């Protein structure tokens, strides 16, 4: 009775396919093997919808469909829906409204949207239940499906400041854009491709006594197995920064001590993923179990088990305290003595995961000359290159690291967590090696936002003037200390700087525990303390009977103030512009407008309003630099190479716009490549709000230099005065004479002139940006359901290089902030295992969870940032959670100080109706 589906024949996008899927294969991987690379893997479990295709006209999640079920069927993927130049209506709509950022969810989003009937389109919260987007906050998705056209035309001389489309948008909406894992099977560099899988620790803290690999090695198809005995015994940090000293070298590629459940124990490379997985199951590991500690306060006690014994290299650290930061300006003792009211409370924030839709992954291979190439999903390819050189004792020229399109980052890819093993394996075997994280591994073995517990004490006089601010932050960095020091410093920085107060004090501790490590995450430590302080300011205001806007306006930083947290050393932060006052006014008037949804009927619903503000120093205090190169090419177009990564932040769009402004051309005249250690100049990485203020600055300097080059040569070429020469679109106007750039190029080249420029930018001084979030919401006093009725946001991000994109970044940050506040929480069991490592059980906001927000931009033009712009993508998340918490407190009269504010965590404390 057995039917071997030896040959499946189906049609994929109208093309007949005769191939046999593997017996347990799902349709997603089968279709990708057949070259349909537009289909993406977000979760591989049916939760995210990135793999949506139509099977015989019905939309399905192809990761859940057994491949054999497509036999005789007709499959339509994003690539069959429409083509570049011949877009399907829904693809065009997503392009016109830019209903995407990183674009990784887009194929599935469009395949779903294009299948909706009218009733479903009228009820997107239901219809898009099965499509998760981490970037957009869904507003742009709704715009796209509704057919609104947000994008503007690209006009020479007006490119900067216009809502231009993403230059790769058409490729994204048609599924032609290539992400890290989108390599066709016949790609020559992948001949002999091996697949890597990792066996992960089953204990939170243990020493590996022995690994028996006999049975695993005997499995046909296994090519190599690596354990701690097979790797260079060289310490490093997976975190990426320009300054390698800011993160502790506390990791080995593979270690003989595991410090969290999920840590790498062994890596297997094999002819297929299936064999590699099977071999992992055949490895027998003997552990000597060590005592584990999960609570950072417990981990600080003298009797706690110590995770790292790193010897004298870690001068200053003691026990599990990796980093300790203290500071005081003025005297908080005096400040509290002078206060009429003091408020003190402990607040805490939760561990959350970035959930970029594209999981971590990389592919490494060697070319004939022996050079190693690494194609990776990274926010910092140049630092990855340096770290690989360090680990494998290779010269920089021997390693090439690059990205294709990156499917989201949010700080999660400011980390080297796959490249090292792929390179190790490719060096050992001589063959290409690919490793792609599963969604489960993202939760159990990547990084998270640092969980922080913050004691805040505020003092103020009767009129609401702050007399003292004191905080104590304990950050749980988990098993490894990457980003622990920097996030701790950030947690004691901006949130305290935002308020002018003569007396401030902070104590911070970043503590090792046996949990999955913390890492960089949008908001980077600042989010956590902003939550605590903004909640505390509200509580203080209530105590004093001062309005929430009043207390903030009275105390918030303003031009002329010294920009200072708790350290009095000189700082390179300056007011390049100031728009916090406008943000406050905009949010206040929007909340007062009465717009938004009405309170639901019934006395069980309680209504409240909350606000919070946040301040960002645009760029990290650590070193950060970026370079760009630009040249005119023979057809009169420009070529721009910039090192920074595009992962949905929009930098390839905005960088072209910055260059276009300086060259008086359309953005479309500029071709761009980025994030490639061979083809672009050095860039520290796209993180810490540097995509505009550092990489954008490099682009601006480079374009300006190229303009001078062009005009100088044009003046020489035509004999016109330099002063009467100017660029206009694809030509130079030299007085009355118009010389096309292609013509200029030909003339110059003939004379040996080179039309090119290269500049570098270094981040100093740094300017400041501000965000204010306001929310009106309703809380059901019985079910504890929270409904956001009106969400408003004021952003002071300087000049808007691309308003549509700026708005999208802020919408996305708000959506992520709503997730942090209301839906997301990584739960660990008593043994340190993540209980909910899937998108089904760890709920990032879906369409229904994120109401549209009104976003108001302050009218500012920064004198430090490039062309008046400031950082935009990061800080908007910071005031969202405290604004929500403050609104819930306003509605219910009860303060909830610990994120997340899920109904089951708050219901018991809700009182009866007031």
């Amino acid at each position: 009775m057995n039917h071997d589906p030896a040959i499946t024949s189906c049609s994929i996008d109208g093309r007949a396919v005769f191939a046999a899927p593997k017996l347990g294969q799902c349709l997603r991987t089968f279709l990708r093997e057949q070259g349909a690379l537009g289909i993406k893997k977000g979760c591989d479990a049916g939760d995210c919808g990135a793999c949506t295709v139509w099977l015989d006209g019905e939309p399905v999640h192809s990761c859940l469909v057994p491949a054999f079920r497509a036999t005789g069927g007709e499959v339509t993927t994003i690539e069959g829906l429409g083509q570049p130049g011949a877009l399907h209506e829904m693809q065009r709509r997503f392009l016109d409204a830019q209903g995407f950022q990183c674009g990784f969810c887009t194929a599935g989003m469009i395949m779903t949207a294009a299948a909706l009937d009218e009733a479903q389109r009228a009820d997107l919260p239901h219809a898009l239940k099965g499509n998760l987007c981490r970037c957009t906050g869904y507003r742009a998705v709704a715009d796209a499906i509704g057919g609104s056209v947000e994008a503007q035309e690209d006009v020479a001389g007006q490119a900067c400041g216009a809502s231009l489309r993403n230059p790769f948008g058409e490729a994204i909406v048609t599924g032609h854009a290539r992400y890290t894992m989108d390599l066709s099977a016949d790609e020559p560099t992948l001949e002999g491709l091996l697949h890597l899988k990792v066996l992960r620790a089953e204990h939170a803290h243990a020493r590996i006594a022995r690994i028996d690999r006999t049975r695993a090695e005997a499995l046909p198809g296994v090519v190599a197995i690596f354990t701690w005995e097979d790797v260079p015994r060289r310490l490093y940090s997976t975190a990426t920064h320009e300054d390698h000293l800011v993160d502790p070298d506390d990791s080995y590629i593979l270690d003989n001590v595991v410090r969290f459940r999920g840590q790498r124990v062994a890596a297997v490379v094999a002819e297929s993923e299936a064999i590699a997985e099977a071999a992992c199951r055949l490895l027998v590991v003997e552990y000597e179990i060590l005592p584990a500690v999960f609570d950072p306060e417990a981990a600080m006690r003298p009797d706690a088990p110590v995770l790292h014994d790193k010897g004298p290299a870690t001068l200053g650290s003691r026990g599990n305290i990796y980093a300790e930061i203290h500071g005081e300006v003025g005297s908080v003792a005096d400040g509290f003595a002078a206060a009429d009211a003091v408020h003190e409370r402990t607040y805490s924030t939760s561990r959350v995961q970035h959930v970029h839709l594209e999981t971590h992954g990389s592919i490494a291979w060697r070319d004939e000359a022996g050079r190693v190439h690494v194609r990776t999903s990274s926010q910092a390819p140049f630092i990855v290159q340096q770290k690989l050189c360090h680990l494998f004792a290779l010269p920089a020229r021997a390693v090439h690291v690059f990205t294709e399109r990156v499917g989201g980052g949010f700080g999660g890819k400011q980390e080297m967590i796959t490249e090292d093993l792929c390179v190790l394996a490719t060096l050992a075997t001589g063959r290409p090696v690919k490793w792609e994280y599963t969604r489960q591994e993202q939760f159990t073995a990547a990084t998270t936002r640092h969980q922080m517990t913050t004691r805040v004490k505020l003092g103020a006089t009767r009129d609401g003037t702050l007399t003292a601010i004191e905080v104590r932050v304990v950050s749980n960095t988990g098993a490894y200390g990457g980003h622990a020091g920097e996030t701790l410093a950030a947690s004691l920085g901006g949130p305290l700087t935002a308020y002018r107060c003569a007396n401030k004090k902070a104590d911070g501790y970043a503590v090792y525990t046996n949990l999955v490590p913390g890492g960089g995450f949008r908001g980077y430590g600042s989010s956590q303390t902003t939550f605590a302080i903004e909640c505390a300011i509200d509580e203080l205001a209530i105590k004093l009977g001062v309005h929430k806007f009043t207390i903030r306006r009275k105390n918030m930083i303003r031009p002329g103030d010294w920009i200072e947290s708790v350290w009095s050393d000189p700082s390179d932060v300056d007011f390049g512009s100031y728009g916090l006052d406008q943000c406050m006014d905009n949010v206040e008037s929007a909340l007062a407008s009465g717009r938004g949804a009405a309170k639901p009927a019934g006395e069980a619903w309680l209504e409240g309003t909350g606000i919070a503000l946040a301040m960002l120093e645009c760029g990290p205090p650590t070193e950060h630099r970026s370079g760009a190169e630009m040249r005119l090419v023979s057809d009169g177009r420009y070529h721009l190479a910039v090192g920074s990564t595009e992962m949905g932040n929009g930098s390839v769009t905005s960088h072209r716009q910055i260059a276009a402004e300086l060259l008086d051309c359309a953005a479309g005249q500029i071709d761009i490549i980025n994030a490639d250690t061979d083809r672009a100049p050095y860039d520290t990485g796209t993180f810490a709000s540097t995509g505009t203020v550092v990489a954008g600055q490099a682009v601006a300097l480079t374009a300006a230099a190229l303009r001078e080059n062009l005009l100088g040569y044009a003046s020489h070429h035509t004999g016109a005065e330099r002063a009467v020469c100017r660029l206009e679109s694809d030509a130079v106007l030299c007085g009355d004479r118009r010389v096309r750039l292609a013509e200029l190029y030909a003339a110059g080249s003939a004379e040996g002139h080179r039309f090119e420029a290269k500049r570098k930018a270094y981040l100093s001084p740094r300017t400041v940006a501000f965000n204010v979030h306001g929310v009106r919401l309703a809380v059901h006093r019985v079910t504890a359901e929270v409904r956001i009725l009106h969400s408003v946001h004021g952003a002071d991000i300087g000049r808007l290089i691309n308003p549509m994109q700026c708005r999208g970044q802020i919408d996305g940050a708000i959506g992520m902030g709503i997730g942090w506040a209301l839906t997301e929480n990584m739960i660990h069991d008593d043994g340190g295992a993540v209980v909910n490592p899937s998108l089904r059980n760890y709920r990032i906001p879906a369409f229904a969870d994120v109401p549209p927000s009104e976003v108001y931009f302050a009218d500012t033009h920064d004198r430090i940032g490039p062309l008046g712009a400031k950082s935009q993508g990061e800080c908007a998340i910071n005031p969202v959670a405290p604004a929500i918490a403050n609104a819930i407190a306003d509605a219910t009269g009860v303060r909830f100080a610990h994120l997340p504010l899920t109904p089951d965590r708050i219901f018991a404390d809700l009182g009866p109706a007031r």
Partner: protein
Amino acid sequence: MDLHTIRELRRPISAGSIDEWRGGYAWLAGGTWLFSEPQPALDTLIDLGGLGWPALEVSADGLTIGATCRVVDLHRFAGPAEWHALPLFRACCDAFLASFKIWNAATVGGNLCMSLPAGPMISLTAALEGFCTLWPRHGAPREVPVADFVAGNHANVLGAGELLRSIHLPASALRKRAAFRHASLTKLGRSAALLIGTRDAEGGLLLTITAATDRPVQLRFNAMPGVAEMRGAVECIAEARWFGDEHGSAAYKRHLALHFAEEIRAELEVASP
């Protein structure tokens, strides 16, 4: 996701042809759960797709739902006008965390056999007093009430290799007036509590509590209970039944159940229009 350990795919045209059963076998219906998690213990999939079980059969006795009936078919089902409980079909489909695209593949029987506390097809068929017809690998078919079919979180009464063939909803239950309440920690998310009340012509009330409890809990009242009686009955549910997980703590779910039970009671207490 790919199930890498599958070595054999069997596609029988009659269930009887699978006569022996061993560990490593799994029946494959829609596949929406099987393919959503690694299944390293499985080596053989036995496809139910070729068995040709009818999806929905209406008779004077009621509605028989084939185990392989897709959720989307149930969602689209329009039955006789006197089946007042039919709005529950859509309400329960909408209570899935999964989207309508999953409904295109997922089956009603699959949801029962998963036996998760929050399985909305369990809520629906238990509340409508459904009976499961089970086909053991050997021996005669047997019938089990849906409410007894699910034995706990991810546990049911199926023996090794035993098949859920169909679920029969009696017309008497389908004719009842019904009230539905549901809550989730996130909007349109997985149920933290899903309660259904049905009222018969004689004024009796059947309250079915799911999602909040590890298996369906049914409270039957021969006459419409008062506030205190309802509350007392819910409070009497054994502590161990309240099921806490990442979709809601046990205490919260119990709290919701008490609240929704009263809302349902109050709604159904009012004489039908």
